[in-house]
């Protein structure tokens, strides 16, 4: 057996309030695909960030080709031959494909100028590794490409550095089936070239198709290690490792499900087509699909942020047409954004201020910030207590809290508004496992109190476990519906299969 290219030993890492990793050891060899699996919040991303030098481990060591390394900056790991493809794109939309591929290491002529011709040629060469190469013009602006193609560029960028270790963090999140196949071929090519690949995913199908070995992380620890790819059930068992019935709140009984809160018929806009759906009181509806399938667009349309321009939306029996989030909130809709830091929190304000943001927004501007027609600090504090938010004080800046507690503060924002329809986008992204169950139970409690809930998540087990019904989207349309208990396979298939799109 070849010696490992990367060896991580006894890695421990804590964040304020959370132990993200405890004594994790991990290795990957040249020419193999090592799958790193685990639920959201199991510690996969943290481990990778330690590998690449974004974070520093509290304890443990990283060895590259047998030598201990200490990267203090991602650039250092990049120079050492470790390329990481992050979930968040790091592409510059205003620059061309070629410029992005060679960002920071452009080929130069002997006069020191950028060799545009060579850059384009090399870009073509790198892109030729990918089946999508034909579609990608190195001179196109990245901003003009669709999400899947951007993903390819992102991967090509990592590959083009000549890295010996490539880390792919859920690379298929935005890809349809055909594109996934292309990606798998690419991974195979890289493996044949002797590149060590760390492949992060929680999709069993990809593990079966690609992986040579599997490491399962759970709650910041290695839950299992497989030197050959086992049956998916074994991986799932190691990944979840607990009684699912307890982890997710029980589904709604038929008595709990009431009249439709929301009905949408034939609605659409420039990104959504022919949308029809119902959400009933007491029901949690999951919305699955790959990135770019239009799930967020649908949420934003319902929420008035980028409204429908056709079709009919009924909320609680009345026809509505929300043109702004404010109008939607007045109408009884709430939304928890997916990018907590970017779209959810006001980071420099206190926990209490974050919880009271919406209620204050609907009280008169000139009324007291502590007690007014809509909001009351005492009541908010009680609510925060009730939700068991852990903070030194509710006057503390919210940025110091853990993700789970931050998310709870946003939930608290909506609780005081008593919305009829609540939309959760990626409700547990970046939240540690212990807090996740709390969020699921919270959602269920809200539903029991009569709200309809629409939940968008890229975490399929979550959608399956937490929702009473699952709708699948693809290319701006709702293409399938599954009852509670559908299999991951079926949903993935519905979300990614090639379809004839009616013009």
């Amino acid at each position, binding site marked *: 057996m070849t010696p490992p290219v990367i060896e991580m030993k006894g890695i421990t890492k804590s964040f304020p309030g959370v132990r993200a990793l405890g004594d994790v050891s991990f290795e990957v060899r040249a020419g193999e695909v090592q799958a790193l699996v685990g639920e959201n919040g199991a510690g996969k991303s943290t481990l990778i960030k330690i590998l690449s030098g974004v974070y520093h481990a509290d304890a443990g060591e990283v060895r590259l080709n047998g030598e201990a390394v200490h990267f203090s900056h991602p650039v250092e790991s990049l120079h050492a031959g470790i390329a990481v493809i992050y979930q968040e794109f790091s592409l510059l939309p205003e620059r061309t494909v070629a410029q992005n591929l060679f*960002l920071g290491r452009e080929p130069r002529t002997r006069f020191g100028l950028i060799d545009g011709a060579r850059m384009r040629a090399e870009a073509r060469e790198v892109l030729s590794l990918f089946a999508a190469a034909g579609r990608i013009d190195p001179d196109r602006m990245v901003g003009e490409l669709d*999400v899947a193609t951007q993903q390819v560029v992102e991967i090509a960028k990592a590959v083009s550095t000549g890295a010996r270790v490539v880390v792919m963090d859920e690379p298929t999140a935005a890809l349809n089936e055909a594109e996934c196949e292309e990606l798998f071929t690419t991974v195979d090519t890289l493996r044949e070239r002797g590149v060590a690949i760390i492949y992060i995913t929680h999709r069993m199908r990809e593990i079966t198709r690609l992986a040579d070995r599997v490491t399962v992380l759970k709650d910041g620890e290695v839950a299992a290690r497989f030197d050959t790819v086992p049956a998916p059930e074994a991986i799932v068992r190691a990944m979840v490792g607990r009684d699912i019935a307890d982890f997710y709140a029980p589904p709604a009984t038929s008595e709990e499900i009431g009249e439709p809160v929301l009905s949408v018929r034939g609605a659409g806009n420039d990104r959504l087509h022919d949308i029809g759906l119902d959400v009933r009181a007491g029901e949690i509806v999951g919305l699955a699909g790959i990135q770019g399938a239009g799930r967020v667009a649908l949420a934003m349309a319902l929420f008035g942020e980028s409204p429908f321009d056709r079709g009919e939306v009924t909320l609680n029996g009345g026809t509505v047409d929300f043109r702004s989030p404010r109008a939607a909130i007045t109408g009884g809709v709430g939304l928890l954004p997916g990018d907590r830091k970017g779209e959810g929190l006001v980071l420099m304000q206190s926990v209490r201020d974050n919880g009271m943001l919406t209620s204050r927004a609907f009280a008169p501007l000139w009324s007291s910030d502590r007690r007014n027609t809509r909001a009351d600090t005492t009541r908010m504090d009680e609510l925060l207590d009730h939700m068991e938010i852990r903070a030194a004080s509710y006057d503390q800046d919210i940025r110091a809290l853990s993700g789970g507690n931050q998310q709870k503060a946003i939930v608290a924002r909506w609780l005081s508004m008593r919305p009829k329809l609540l939309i959760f986008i990626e409700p547990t992204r970046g939240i540690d496992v212990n807090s996740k169950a709390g969020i699921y139970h919270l959602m269920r409690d809200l539903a029991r109190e009569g709200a309809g809930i629409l939940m968008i998540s890229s975490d399929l087990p979550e959608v399956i476990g937490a929702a009473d019904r699952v709708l699948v989207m693809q290319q701006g349309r709702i293409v399938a519906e599954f009852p509670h208990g559908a299999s991951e396979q079926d949903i993935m298939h519905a979300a990614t299969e090639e379809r004839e799109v009616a013009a």
Partner: protein
Amino acid sequence: MSIAEDAAPRKPGFRFERWAPLILLVGAFAIYVGIALGTDQAQYLTFDNLIAILGRSIALGITAIGQTFVILVASIDLSVASLISATAVLASVVMDGSPAMILPAILAALVLGAVVGLTNGLVVSGLKVNPLIATLGMSLIIQGCLSAFVSNFAGEVPAAFQVFAYGEIGPFPLALIFLLALAVLAWAVLRFTKFGSDIYAVGGNEEAARFAGIKTGRIVVLSHVICSVCAAIAGLYLASRLRSGAPWIGADGVYDLESIAVVVIGGTVLAGGRGGVWGTMAGMLIFSLIDSVFNIAGVDSFAKQVLRGIIIVAAVAFYAIRSKRIVA
């Protein structure tokens, strides 16, 4: 998952932002021609006159080229006006009428510019001081030091150096050709060098640039140095044009705010990462044309100010109104 992530890709082909400066420029020129013909003053449409218009705002143009670099890296420089005064005075004092001192004077001015730019850049990228505040502070410091020592025109520029502002090559003023050359050089730097590529990267997404191994701090500092050196050149030009340097010439020309306005009207966004030198040149020409239109239409100087303010806002709105981003 952000709102943007789910966004549809932009349509390739016609890109409004790219052509907007040209549209504005053509519009301004059309107004100029219209006014000249409408007021029956066709003599303003001669070749000489057009050259005169091109040459109106050389100092502003040189400064704005530098300002383009800092705005592209998402910084800004409010110290250019004071620096223009300082370098004009310095050059004029060092030359002091002696042709032999021209070279040392030019060097001294450029070195002063480089040092100021270096300081600005280090304060912005090292101490993380907001560039607006850092360069405003720098501006006050320079102006203070300057007026502490000089209160009037100081020194004298020898005739040989006045060629810079007054020389002509054929029908074209030398300074105009210089400006054009500088613009071409700036364009080439932005287009063909790694440094230029890094500037767009740092301005577009500093995080991504850093992850790609670009030393972002260095790029910010260098851009500031370029900006300040351009201001120093503008100072040299003004010293040559005014035959001497005085501590108020930069502030009188409002080169700080006007250079920013020119860059922004030229389509470079204040947030950085998008834009370029030719837009800035178009912005400068628009300013010159507006000035000339006011002159030939005989607009009252106070009304002129009112119109100028409105035009700046309207021109920027011309781009901005299409964006969906929340601005503050």
